[in-house]
């Protein structure tokens, strides 16, 4: 019997970038163009195997509108990871992402795993945010970065796998070098699949 680790993950990001859609794709493997905007937050869970562990993601999806930011601490409090989502077709959403990173750095839990998801990569022809910018920024903050498409189910699983791998294992011995290797692998995967 594998051990189940409950991992609280919160999704942050500008309004309409597709936070709920990513969660929906990940949890229900379903996509809805007009998924209801999240008011306050919504909660979902999904269990994925990771190594010899089962990671049960407790995903808190938050509202994107700026005035809901003041509620965010409720959600990212005690989170093991934060998925910060931006829309590759909207430069503004990348700026918002930076603000969230800053807030997490300032007020977020210690050692919180940050994953940057450039959503809507199916719309790369109207892209505003170059992959290179995101990569450089992610590297600068030591975050996972991946371009996703909730609509086409691109890199959603990989995003959460990446988070799982970033989560330090309970056994301190298994924890060494794990993140760096996985991050590197994740990055190479991303490059292959998204660009």
């Amino acid at each position, binding site marked *: 019997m594998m051990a189940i680790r409950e991992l609280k993950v919160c999704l942050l990001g500008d309004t309409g970038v597709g936070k709920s859609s990513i969660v929906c794709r990940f949890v229900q493997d379903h996509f809805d163009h007009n998924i209801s905007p999240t008011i306050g937050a919504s909660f979902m869970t999904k269990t994925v195997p990771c190594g010899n562990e089962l990671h049960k993601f*407790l995903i808190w999806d938050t509202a994107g509108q700026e*005035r809901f930011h003041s509620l965010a601490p409720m959600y990212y409090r005690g989170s093991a990871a934060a998925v910060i989502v931006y829309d590759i077709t909207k430069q503004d959403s990348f700026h918002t992402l930076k603000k969230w990173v800053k807030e997490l750095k300032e007020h977020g839990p210690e050692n919180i795993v940050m994953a940057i998801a450039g959503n809507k990569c199916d719309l790369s022809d109207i892209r505003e945010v170059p992959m290179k910018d995101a990569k450089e920024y992610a590297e600068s903050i030591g975050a996972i970065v991946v371009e996703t498409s909730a609509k086409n189910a691109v890199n959603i699983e990989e995003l959460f796998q990446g988070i799982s791998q970033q989560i330090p294992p309970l056994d301190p011995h298994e924890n060494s070098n794990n993140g760096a290797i996985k991050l590197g692998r994740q990055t190479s995967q991303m490059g292959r699949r998204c660009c």
Partner: protein
Amino acid sequence: MYPCCSSASFDCKMENGEGVFEIRTPSRAFTLKAISKQAMMYWLQQLQMRRWEFCNTQSRFPVGSSQLVNEPLAGRTNVVDNEDFLPLVKTPTEAVGLKAASLPAPQTSTALQNISLKHPWTEIQNTVYNICGSKQLWGNNGNVFSFDEFQEHPENVDEEQEAEVEAGCAVKEGTPEDGRMGPRLNWIRKARWMNSGFPGSEELSREKNSVDKVSVLQQQILTLTEEVKSQKELVKLLHKALEAAQQEKRVSNMYLTAAEDKDRLELVRHKVRQIADLTSRLEALEQEKKELEQILTLRDSHIQELKEHVQLLMEKNHAKQEVIMTLTEQMARELSDPLQEANTITVETLYKQQEEIEHLKDDIDAYKTQNQFLNSEIHQVTRLWTRVAENEKALLMKCACLQARNCQMESKYLTVLRKLQEAVPGLPNSDAELVKNLIQEALQWDVKEEAEEGFNLNPVSEYDEYGFMTVSDYEIEDWKLLAKIQALEIKSNKLWSQEIVEKPLRDRWNSIGELNPCAELKSLIRSGIPVEHRQRVWRWMVSRHCSPVPGHYQRLLEQSRSTEHPACRQIELDLPRTLTNNKHFSSPTSQLIPRLRRVLLAFSWHNPAIGYCQGLNRLAAVALLVLEDEESAFWCLVYIVENLMPADYYSDTLITSQVDQRVFKDFLSEKLPRLMAHFEQYQIDVSLITFNWFLVAFVDSLVSDILLRVWDAFLYEGTKVIFRYALAIFKYNEEEILRIHDSVEIYQYLRFFTRMITDGRKLMNIAFNDLNPFPMKLLRNRRSTHREELEAELCELEQIKAAYVKERAEQGPQDLEEVVSEEEEES
């Protein structure tokens, strides 16, 4: 005889018999009889004439010459004596007698009318001829009268005739004149005699009446004066005749004086030539006359034609004048008094109308009969209908009961299926397949059957009256099953309560006319407003506190068209994802989406402090669904945000929303201490779940049926209703939650548990009865306390942030990775 004749008087007495007349002389009296009255008259006239002539000749001519004159006359008198001589009567009666008899009162002047002055000679000749002709004829007849003197010369007729002719030629001044004038004078005399009315002047003079003598004499004078007049005229005539005779005489003298036969011949020839010339002239004149006559006839006919034409034109003219007259009259009438015209028209049409009225009366009678029949028919049909309605009601009741039972059975069946689904891994493959198929079947909507049969065989329909999906569209199948079970339970609850609870409430609602705030209305609203009254009551509730400013909404729309509000982007983002479980909003082409856009844009301009906050879209959407009218929905939104909710509920920091979460936790601790303790044990932050309940008043959390009931009370009573229901929802599921001993599972449960509430009535009873007392004052106090706390915390946070920024600035730029996060201020 002649001397006695001159002094004779004549008389005719009607009593003596026809044709009998008397001649009286001073010596003796003769009684004579003529064959007829006319003859008698003729004789009398002749006698009178002779007497006149005799008297005249005695005075003017010598005695010798008078002999010549009297002789033929005497002869003539004798001839007339013949009684049998009938043809003779005609001549004298036509020539003299009849004229005298038929003209009773001719005047002296007119007595000379027939005398032609132009041809006196011809006249005289004619007269002479007549007299001669008569004499000859008379001569052949015998004397019937016993008149001795006349019978003396019957054989001498021819001689006398010759003598007369001789006399006519020889004595030109005398005889022809007398012969011609005789009858005339006689005639005048006769007339005078008739007028005076007495037999004769001689007779009167002979009477020795001294008294009357003067008057008689005067009359005689008059008579004589008249006679003198006529004598004068006669003299004139005679003068003319004399002139003519002298002319003739000159010619004759020329003829006679001509010496030789040759000259005479020449004269005759000349005369003959003259005659021929005259004849030819006469002919020419006659010809001319004929021509003239012809021309005359032509002219006459032409005149006739022209007259006809004139007649025609006259008629035409007349007709035209008449037309003009009528038109003028009409015009005058029209000009003078249009009303009168209308009156005349009315008079004209009166008859028609009367006829029409008759028809209509008939119709009325027919309709009355028909009406009576129809009334009875209505009565009959109503009775039938009542019976049928009762039957239908009973059947509906039965149907509802059966449906409710069906729902329950189905729900139980689905529950069993769900249990089986959970047990699938342990079942043999075939059974697992069967269970899967059964679940698939249970979840499918039998749309086809529904459409064809006209009624729904499915226990629940896909959408409710506001377009909300009755079964939530969960992606995971066991949730779908759960949702369907839930829908079936809601339906069966509804069906059970329909007759017992809903109907009396409906009746009470129907009896409410004007809405007035009162305790009864409050309790009615809490029980839920029936669909047919909801719109009206909502409008009333909104207008009570938030009276719409006319034109305000239109101005806001104008503003939102001209200027783009910063909130526009967020609104556009949220529009397609509003009420996705409602068919009126789920389609991107839905008509409600543009309306919702306008309402939200208008609100963002109406309240710039709030602008647009995610969640307002849901509030506006529900308002639109119920109120339908865009402007009403706008004012409803204004009412909720500005009147019902505390200030700053939707503004930048959502501070009062956060305050309310703390207040709610207080209430939860107070009202449901066991549950609160349970949450604390598993580190459950309920505000993660309840925050949006408050912000959007349970939209998307509760099933539509319960949601609208909550809104009914919320719009009437305010935010306290949200607290009550939020607490009631926990209380409703308290036991269930208490059974869960895992924080993730509790969260999982809390995520859906609002949708598991199927009994709205039970929830309402909890909210408004079990949770009492719920004083507003307490709520207000708690709100203000928590607001102060929260504001202090936020202020502290700001200070820490500021201190951090300042510290960072002093340390200089550093890599973000190396920065150690601060301890969370709230932990």
